[in-house]
């Protein structure tokens, strides 16, 4: 029999998944809309499909499909993987930005990386070589575009000429591909990028360039991208150095949450928080990272902090709303007018929310079965 918290999480995850499926239906079943907002899109509400986040929504749908027995989620997920493959250039590159009226944008390093998650998950689910071949081509394009001398990706960036630290989250999917189809070029390029970014670490554990812009405070969203990239890359490379680097910063953020009672929306390199708003996506992502830390080295303090980080997200999820397209969605920020994705419901906020709830449910269940935390 589930605990009250598990019951709540399952109900809310189901609402979140329904919203994600709605965001895909709104795009004709090909891609999930970037966001829903009556403020930015007064007539339609839904924005164009976004290949990047559709890519990493695929594993969420598959995982949820298995956890809940909803086969339709898995089928939708696989259709999204097929759509991503249809967007791939012959050289393996995948497009950035959104797809407007069927027209895709120029290739993007980060977005290609994120779509590899979806292709890997589709391959894991079906065993179909086409997905892995697509993922491998994408990973090889990423490896080929790395400036090996500087250890950064100079082109195809979100901000021209700026190679951010959250590219660790490009190295991670490259290593996921290499784990399924061994390729030393891909693995080596990922390692080179990780080494460069690890060199940007400040003495206090913060990492330079981990925001969208250089020298600006970083949203917890991109901080979590950076740290998770290091953490998972450390796991795949079996190098504790990267994992430790992520763990130290994750612990600093955990202590800040505990002492302040909540996470800031963004932090600068001195760990000074911007507490005027909360970046809800970042909260979910950090909760996921903390739960990964708990899984690696059982310490329920991580899990406790993760549950606390999810609390404002649960409170912000729209349950009852006159507009049915809002039900189940997670806003970018709380308050709604906060600086991260102001007045919008981005699809990745709901994705990370569902991921975090599924993992929290699993970890609380494991704790129930265990006689003690050891």
């Amino acid at each position, binding site marked *: 029999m589930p605990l009250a918290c598990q019951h709540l999480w399952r109900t809310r995850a189901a609402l979140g998944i329904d919203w994600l499926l709605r965001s895909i239906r709104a795009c004709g079943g090909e891609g999930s809309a970037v966001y829903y907002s009556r403020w930015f899109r007064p007539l339609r509400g839904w924005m164009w499909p976004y290949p990047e986040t559709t890519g990493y929504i695929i594993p969420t749908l598959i995982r949820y499909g298995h956890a809940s027995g909803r086969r339709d989620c898995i089928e939708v997920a696989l259709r999204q993987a097929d759509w991503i493959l249809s967007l791939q250039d012959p050289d393996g590159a995948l497009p950035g930005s959104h797809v407007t009226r069927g027209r895709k944008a120029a290739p993007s390093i980060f977005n290609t990386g994120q779509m590899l998650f979806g292709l*890997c998950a589709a391959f894991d689910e079906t065993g179909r070589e086409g997905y892995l071949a697509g993922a491998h081509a994408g990973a090889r394009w990423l490896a080929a575009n790395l400036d090996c001398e500087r250890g950064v990706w100079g082109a195809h960036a979100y901000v021209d000429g700026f190679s951010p630290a959250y590219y660790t989250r490009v190295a991670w999917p490259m290593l996921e591909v290499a784990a399924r189809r061994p390729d030393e070029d891909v693995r080596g390029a990922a390692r080179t990028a990780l080494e460069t970014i690890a060199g940007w670490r400040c003495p206090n554990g913060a990492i330079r360039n981990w925001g969208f812009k250089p020298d600006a405070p970083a949203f917890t969203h991109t901080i979590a991208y950076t740290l998770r990239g290091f953490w998972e890359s450390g796991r795949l490379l079996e190098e504790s150095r990267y994992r430790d680097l992520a763990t130290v910063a994750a612990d600093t953020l955990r202590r800040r949450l505990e002492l302040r009672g909540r996470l800031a929306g963004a932090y600068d390199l001195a760990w000074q928080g911007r507490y005027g708003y909360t970046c809800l996506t970042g909260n979910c992502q950090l909760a996921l990272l903390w739960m990964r830390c708990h899984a690696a080295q059982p310490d329920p303090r991580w899990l406790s902090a993760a*549950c606390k980080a999810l609390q404002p997200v649960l409170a912000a999820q729209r349950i009852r709303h006159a507009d049915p397209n809002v039900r189940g969605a997670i806003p970018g920020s709380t308050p709604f007018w906060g600086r991260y994705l102001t007045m919008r419901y981005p699809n990745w906020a709901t994705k990370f929310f569902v991921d975090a709830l599924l993992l929290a449910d699993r970890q609380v269940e494991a704790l129930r079965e265990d006689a*003690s935390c*050891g």
Partner: protein
Amino acid sequence: MRVAVTAGYGRSLHAIALVEQLARRGCTVRLGLEVSVWTWRRLRFYLRQIGPAKLVQKARAKLTPGGPGSTYGGEVAPLQDYCRENDVRSRSFRQACRGVGARHLVVHDLNEPAALAAVRAAGIDCVVYAGGGILRPALLDAVPGGVLNAHGGPLPAFRGMNVAEWALLYGVTPEVAVIQVDAGIDTGPIVHTYPIPGAAWDSVAHGRGAAARASVEALLEAVDALQAGTLRPRPQRLEDGRQFFVMADPLLEVLAERLPRRTATVPASRFRFPEAAGLPTDGYL
């Protein structure tokens, strides 16, 4: 022995019981330092730690101890029993201080100059801490015998907040540890340990209450030992413990479910935190 007692709020049964019981044991209670609840800083701290709903619930239970329907009511009952059994009659900290001829002073912060001046003027040997926030070095240095505090969980392993609950989650027998407060968080030398009856932990609220009662008894025993000159402080090593914060509700739910079917627990003296369990093998894309 001349002592001062602190109180986190005016109706703290914990502090009231200590004032009356210390006086009965031959101590001269010279000063009672009560921290005003009504400070924005304090309110903000609690709001952040436990949230508005729980804060209201907690405040209601503290103001009307044992009120029906309050989960915090169970926390207060063991101390009410203690007061009844030991004929502790004062209704407020102020009344308790007046009853034993001690000066009673309300402050916003125990570290503020007025509190420091009062401690210095009272010429006391030791402070018995019964709540009121974090103590700064200036106050700690102002008392020759130091400040005694009853920590609600096993030390050195479990430092910080909700430590009895954390200890139980780890399968460790909860106990109260009296320490000489230093500048760290629960890192001062341990002077005395006191068991919390295992049977009290049929629920989290009852267990917390039993820990509060045990804290009073442990502090009284520690002051007795200090008077008799038999107190033997054992320094803690920083690396032997972890700092815990308020336990999140889902973990409290797990603990509440586990308590009734709890079997043996590991004594605190034998407990070590588990080593790394290795990297997980399952991916989570």
